[in-house]
């Protein structure tokens, strides 16, 4: 493994796309959680597909 000081190593171009994708995944998790729990606590259904 390269013994560089990682605190000053600039990120390569892919990194910002990777961060954008992981933010999308978090947003998806939050949206699905809110939707599923809203449906369940209002007696309207549950996690999509869990029927």
């Amino acid at each position: 493994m390269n013994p560089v000081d990682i605190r000053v190593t600039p990120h390569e171009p892919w990194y910002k796309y990777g961060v954008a994708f992981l933010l999308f995944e978090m947003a998806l998790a939050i949206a699905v959680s809110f939707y599923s729990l809203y449906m369940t606590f209002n007696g309207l259904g549950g996690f999509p597909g869990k029927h």
Partner: protein
Amino acid sequence: MRGYKVEQLAIATVGFFWCFLMWFSTAAFSPSIAATYHLTIKDLGLLASSAIWMAPVGRIVAGWAADRFGAPRTFAAILAGCGLVSIASAFTTSYEWLFAERIVVAIAGVSFVVGIQHVAQWFDSHEMGTAEGLYAGTGNVGAGVGALLLPRIFGTDYQSAFLWLGVIALLVAAWYLVRGSAARTTERRDAARRSGDLRGMVFVWTRYIAIALMLAYAMSFGLEIALNAWLPGYFARGFHDEIAALGFSGVAGLQIAAGTFAAVESFNASLFRPFAGFMSDLFQRRGWTPLPFIAKELPYAPRLHWLGIALILITVSMIGLAVAGLYGSLPLSVATLVALGIFISFGTGGTFALVPLLFPDRPGIAAGFVGGISTFGGIVFPLVFAGGANLHVGYLYVALYMFVPFILFYFWAARYERRPQEHGFLSRSLAGQQA
């Protein structure tokens, strides 16, 4: 060596995602299989538990094979083998044969450690957390996507599902072989190949920090798979009246509500994992080392602190889950569970941001040990959950009598300011390494 690292990450992620789809497709169609073969509750329980049987030993072997033969060949072999058996299981008319075939298909789950090794061989230390998190988190969600989409696409026709999943697995295997490349440099590939022997395995298994990371992964991923199996029954029995009051009647209604709570925990544990890896990178970049006792001067010390924080949050949430259950508050229990799912992801992402950095010449063997043995948590934790005076207090027992000692051991193993991976139950020479 040929290839671009983002392409290698994409190949590994798609391969792992497909393996997870195959692994949990049995569970997604268990109602249809149960109806076809008139299975009892015990039969269903056995089918569900069989999905984990091959994981502990399988992951150890797969991790070693990844170091020895390279990730592309190992991953392609897993995809092709499981794919062929999945195709065969589509034509089976006997339950005994189907059960055996689905256990073989469940071996697809061992591919996790192969992909970890593959990503470790391509990415640098400062981006390891994000890279490994994207691989594992995105791949993990294959189980949830399978539960979501497979019954909607195929209905009760599980034979067609198993057939298509197997055929596409063969295509992914071919893609892995053609475009996959074991490491960014021949030096890295050769180092892993040289170190991928029995002595290397003994060395890793006897290191304190490897054992501590294995226990950390048992507390996170082991807990996740334990909760996947436990939570539906827990909510159905522990909050029966509260769920009925929401308007869910009958067994089917109870299952929908209970299944939703379990799915939300699992979904968050998967989809927050890349963020957890990113946080490990962020801790590393900013040099944050807030916890006492754990090393502060090591090159990767901040990552040790991030993982320590995750383990503490997991333990506190487990205590909170017990308290919420004892109070009989369904909303509080679910809110705590959502938080627990997120903290579990901090643990899983934090662990594998560290494993490749601590054992850079044996990433597969290390991943196999940490990722394999920890799956016993999926078997042991539900037994402890069920062993309490009531359904809710089991979480407290696990937190106080298992997780607290695990955390104390982690703090103890991570205190060394110089080369923690050198300290273990055997000296280097006794572990078969040059002094």
